[in-house]
């Protein structure tokens, strides 16, 4: 591993063609997708929503090292915000741009509500409490029938539109998702390198030492929960806008687990890893669709095999976006 500057530059130059090729491939893929048949665009959309969820949850798990098994609660908060504010359920027909800030505020509120009681907890205890929190939200949605429509869910949601531009067809949703994922991805990546991101890393590595050097661990943890919840609820809003139907079924414990798994299989703490993990766990069931009932069995066994074969994930932390960027710009 070269550490001094000249050899680092040499290594960067050497990996430059590969990085360029990867980038060109990604751009080509992104540009081609909206011209494919609708089925493929829908799969791509669901992939992008999971990437967004993965980016959100990764802040808590990958950066701050707190195991959260109730992430789906925030996804549900976002989805139900859209479902209730943009349908005849409450008689409000707010536009997407008005709902997004409301959904994000509600998500942050839920994140802090979960964060405050669990600040003292660590590891497995944290996992079970967050799991319980997710279940509580799901049971509430299921039973507050007067507001949420109960197990039937809310149907016939309004078409989303931004400034008169309709966002309802899969290709339109796709572009919205591409923009949101890229912007969120860049922001979160900057956040990881900011002072707050360094505080999260310190907490992840050694909480007591972090407190010892003057990091306010309480605030940093709450910030992690809040940002991740905000991203989760944005994903929920887009999910509801694209399905135009929500029901509690979409927010089960399995969903939370799937997102955790995506991060772990892909590579904890690494945006590229999240994309890889999402690709495997979302695309594979689609490919296996012919084997309908064998699908989950395969997925379960594959999970075990992947974790045993690559316990650190498919894309390790060291091959993060930095490496790609260094390869491109040679610095």
């Amino acid at each position, binding site marked *: 591993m070269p550490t001094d500057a000249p050899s680092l530059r040499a290594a960067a130059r050497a990996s430059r063609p590969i990085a360029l090729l990867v980038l060109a491939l990604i751009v080509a893929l992104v540009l081609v997708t909206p011209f494919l048949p609708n089925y493929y665009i829908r799969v791509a959309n669901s992939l992008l929503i999971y990437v967004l969820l993965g980016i959100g949850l990764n802040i808590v798990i990958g950066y701050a*090292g707190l195991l959260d098994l109730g992430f789906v609660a925030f996804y549900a908060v976002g989805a139900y915000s859209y479902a209730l504010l943009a349908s005849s359920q409450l008689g409000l027909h707010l536009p997407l741009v008005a709902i997004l800030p409301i959904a994000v505020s509600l998500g942050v509120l839920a994140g802090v509500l979960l964060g405050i009681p669990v600040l003292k907890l660590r590891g497995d205890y944290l996992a079970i409490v967050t799991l*319980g929190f997710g279940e509580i939200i799901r049971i509430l949605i299921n039973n507050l029938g007067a507001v949420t429509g109960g197990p039937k869910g809310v149907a016939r949601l309004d078409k989303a539109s931004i400034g008169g531009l309709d966002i309802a067809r899969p290709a339109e949703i796709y572009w919205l998702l591409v923009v949101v994922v890229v912007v969120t991805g860049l922001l979160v990546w900057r956040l990881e390198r900011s002072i707050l991101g360094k505080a999260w890393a310190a907490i*992840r590595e050694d909480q007591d030492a972090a407190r010892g050097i003057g990091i306010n661990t309480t605030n940093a943890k709450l910030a992690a929960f809040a940002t991740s919840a905000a991203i989760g609820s944005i994903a929920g809003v887009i999910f509801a806008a694209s399905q135009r139907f929500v029901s509690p079924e979409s927010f089960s414990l399995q969903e939370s687990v799937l997102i955790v*798994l995506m991060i772990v299989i892909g590579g904890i703490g690494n945006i590229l890893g999240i994309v890889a993990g999402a690709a495997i766990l979302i695309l594979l069931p689609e490919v296996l669709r012919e084997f309908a009932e064998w*699908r989950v*069995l395969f997925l379960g066994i*594959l*999970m075990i095999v992947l974790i045993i074969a690559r316990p650190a994930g498919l894309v390790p932390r060291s091959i993060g976006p930095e490496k790609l960027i260094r390869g491109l710009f040679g610095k």
Partner: protein
Amino acid sequence: MLGIFFQQAVNALTIGSIYALIALGYTMVYGVLRMINFAHGEMFMLGAYAAFLVLALLAGDAHAAGPLTLVAAFVIAVVAVGGIGVLIERFAYKPLRNSTRLAPMLSSLGASLALVAGMQILAGPQPVAFPSFFPSVTYNVMGGTVTSVQIGILVAAFVLMYGLTLLVNRSRIGVIVRAVSESRQTARLLGINVDFAISMVFFTGALLGAAGGILYASYYGIMSPTMGAVVGLKAFTAAILGGIGSIPGAVLGAFILAFVEVAGTALLPLLTGGLLGTEYRDVLAFAILILVLLVRPAGILGEPVSEESMVYKREF
């Protein structure tokens, strides 16, 4: 009034003892490997299906088996599921023993998914009527009713739990397991076969879980491939509530949870004037868990976070 109270208490004890049997498996695995075994709820489901299969093989018709056949089926089924528990550990968790703490937990989730899906393929996704392992006679006690099924479940559960206490505290296997849970490295240095101890933990844990599954299925007269998910989650909550890693804690947590649930089911609609129905039972269970953990972050009988447990925190 007293009768209703008595009857609800017996209901709670019955459910509590089934939760306790399952919670013991979670807590023992955690005590030795510091791992949450999410596939444990599926041992509960496998127990019921295995018993049904053995009954059908032994008696031809699972619903018309004699007492001896029932006892034989119970024993064969729980031992078989114990064996399955050991096999799962060997293939899905053992390769990850020196990995991060998150890895075996997620591997167990994979195992859980595969077991449920596998059972859905083998036996179909629909619920199946399950024969009662106990004669059904209803007794009137103090104005309430108690069934022989409930008494049978209580007796069976307490015999199994007493057996586990003897195994852990009095037998050679118990000494080995306790040594390994204290420190795996030291135990190995002292010549203890660590792999054997871990296999024993998974064997007894899965066996107790399977017994819980058979008792639960005979109580409600029904089994389904997904039955392990909800009850497993409850038992897991019970183990955490009592303090995971602690055997008496698991039993205590299971009974507290069962009493809260039964009381919640009976009292919630009454206290809130029908506003909150019995469907909020699970909310109550998790709310109690969160409240207890706020006061005692390691559970009721759990050890407080110590130097030793802090060593693990860096690993994911």
